[in-house]
């Protein structure tokens, strides 16, 4: 009955209809399935809490028009028009709808019947222009012709979105399974919240407790975990979140792309072998909240954290990979962040146990697409240097490697230490080929530079020195707060 179109808002609406009918494949939907969700919307869109919820999606529609507050019959008429145009017996135009190619609806989509038949505007489709506006349409022919099926999907869209920070969060993927599961998750949450609000006489639906980016990644991870447990096959896919408001008080739209490489990293990192490290990184990513006493005599209450910086920084990959590595894998604290941001308290001295080469190795392969040979060379150098520092107890070299701010100083420190080894009849710490591969070859990333390579070697060194117990014995060699190196 319905097919995915590729358009994010229409597809999320289609997935919502499918989830409402408990059918993963929208082509399996029947007219009765469409009738069922249409009936639900007819009954619920015209009353609170959904009536107020819909103002961010369809301002001034028949569902939300304040002038209809005293004329509920008009809301019924509007609901019948926009939610019934898919029916086979409903009039159709001889022109294709823009999203599905099926014939556009053949009736005016307003209460008074004054609009051109089948034409949709901002009150029907979020983020397009209002009635009569001729900008952005071919030959100034205002409004989009839309089929009844696409119109029903667009009306169902808010039910398959999360309510977040006063806007709607719709999640779309080229993998229909992911689109479906997000719509299912948000729909189930909304159905429960609607019922609870109605039972309690509340006029509004509650907001999601977490900030949008956190909510998006948190939900994704939950769904991926369920998917892994169900032993469903992973296929490469990208996911895009649309956080939008079509409100008359102010339109807004943020788009978060989660590229295929980041999704692949998340899928693997949350799996068994890496889960413990992943969970600890996540745990240290939550906002730090302070206990507050609301009234005299009451015991203090610690509010729930609203965001997780680790989750939110995942959305800035791969562009932000260098920052990500320093912050989460090397535990370098961030200055000038807001109160409560846990990154200000990151500490290599306190959290050396969180430095994990295996997680970094995964990150380099999945997110940065780093050449395996280069990763292996970096690992080998990290091992060699860790052994050198441990055996020679060369605190000075370790400290220099950790804090050096200029490339030539790093080179000099390596050459000096290497020469000292050779003097003792031992092999050099680093060979010419190794040096070139690690520090001179780029990865076609603007953030790929010598200091990134240094950080990678350092992560392996620190992990090895921690395992050898050297770091515990020489904790003072790690600065309490490692600062960003001076720019060259």
């Amino acid at each position: 009955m319905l097919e995915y179109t590729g358009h994010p808002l229409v597809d999320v609406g289609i997935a919502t209809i499918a989830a409402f009918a408990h059918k993963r494949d929208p082509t399996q939907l029947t007219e009765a399935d469409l009738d069922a969700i249409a009936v639900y919307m007819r009954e619920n869109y015209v009353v609170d809490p959904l009536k107020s919820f819909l103002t961010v999606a369809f301002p001034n529609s028949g569902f939300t028009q304040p002038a209809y507050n005293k004329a509920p019959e008009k809301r019924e008429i509007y609901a019948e028009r926009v939610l019934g145009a898919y029916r086979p017996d409903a009039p159709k135009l001889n022109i294709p709808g823009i999203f599905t190619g099926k014939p556009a609806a053949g009736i005016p989509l307003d209460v008074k019947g004054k609009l051109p038949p089948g034409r949709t505007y901002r009150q029907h489709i979020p983020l397009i222009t209002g009635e009569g506006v001729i900008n952005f349409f071919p030959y100034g022919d205002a409004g989009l012709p839309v089929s009844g099926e696409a119109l029903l999907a667009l009306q169902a869209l808010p039910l398959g979105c999360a309510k977040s920070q006063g806007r709607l969060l719709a999640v779309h993927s080229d993998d229909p399974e992911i689109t479906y599961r997000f719509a299912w998750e948000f729909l189930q949450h909304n159905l429960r919240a609607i019922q609870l609000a109605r039972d309690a006489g509340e006029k509004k639906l509650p907001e999601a407790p977490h900030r949008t980016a956190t909510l998006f990644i948190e939900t994704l991870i939950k769904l991926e975990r369920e998917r892994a447990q169900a032993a469903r096959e992973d296929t490469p896919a990208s996911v895009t979140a649309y956080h939008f408001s079509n409100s008359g008080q102010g339109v807004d739209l943020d788009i978060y792309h989660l590229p295929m490489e980041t999704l692949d990293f998340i899928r693997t990192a949350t799996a068994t072998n890496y889960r413990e490290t992943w969970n600890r990184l996540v745990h240290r990513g939550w906002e730090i909240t302070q206990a507050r006493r609301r009234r005299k005599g009451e015991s203090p209450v610690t509010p729930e954290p609203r965001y997780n910086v680790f989750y939110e920084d995942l959305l800035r990959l791969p562009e932000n990979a260098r920052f990500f590595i320093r912050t989460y894998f090397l535990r370098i604290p961030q200055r000038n962040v807001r109160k409560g941001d846990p990154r200000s308290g990151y500490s290599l001295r306190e959290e050396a146990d969180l430095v994990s080469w295996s997680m970094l190795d995964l990150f380099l392969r999945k997110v940065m697409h780093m050449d395996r040979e280069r990763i292996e060379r970096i690992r080998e150098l990290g091992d060699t240097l860790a052994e050198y520092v441990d055996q020679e107890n060369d605190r000075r070299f370790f400290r220099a490697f950790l804090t050096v701010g200029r490339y030539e100083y790093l080179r000099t420190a390596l050459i000096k230490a290497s020469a000292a080894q050779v003097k003792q009849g031992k092999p050099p710490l680093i060979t010419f080929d190794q040096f070139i591969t690690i520090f001179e070859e780029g990865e076609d990333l603007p953030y790929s530079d010598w200091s990134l390579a240094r950080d990678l070697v350092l992560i392996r060194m620190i992990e090895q020195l921690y395992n050898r117990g050297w770091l515990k014995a020489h904790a003072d060699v790690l600065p309490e707060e490692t600062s960003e190196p001076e720019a060259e």
Partner: protein
Amino acid sequence: MRVLKITAEGLITSFRYPHFMQEVQPTFEMPPPATIYGHICSVLGKWFDPDGVQFALHFTYQAKFEDIEHTHVLTPAAGKLPGTNLPKVNEGKVAPFRRGLLFKPKMMLYVNKPEWAEAFRHPRYPVALGRSQDLFTYTDVEIVELERADHAYFEHTLAPYSFARRTASGFVVLMPRFLDYSRNRFPTFGRYVVIHRRVHSHDFLRFAGEDPLSFWVDPTSEEVKGDKLGLAFHSWVGEDESIVRMA
């Protein structure tokens, strides 16, 4: 395959998502195929038959940001213009729209029409890409003989949707593929993969029983780990793996 290779550079550009119109207009990170068609038409000074014409892209920019753009929001109007007997056709108001922009865009466009080289050297209309005010300069127009290779790398390009299953890199977008001017600018859409970072074909996912892959490469491009720049060609009409069920 002999192709025309055009290098074009500009200061700013923007490729609006077609269905996000109101007050906030994010930009695609690559020019959609429909934009490339319009761009070539402006060079030639006429609509051309897209049947059989193919193109490939290498597109970079230095930064992505937002600016406020004043849009004259217009509606039809009746009556007379003030102080005249002239009929008023439209009226409107200026409204601030948040517009996504790309800074310092650079495009290498490959088209399988080497005979259009002179047209690109003497374009019929001002060279623009994206908005009409986003002027570009052609810094190079040449004819290149592409080669077939078993290996290639792809970067900063728009690839057909089928690449998503192979590259496991980038993200998928729905873009306008073609606007049919003979049918009131009726749009068709396609799904594409935006690939920014370099991915080598030897890292592509392979499937059991499939034939060895081969690619068109630009022999004049930089060689990286033994590979040349691969080109993913697109068409505007006809069967294409990017097609989705949208109109």
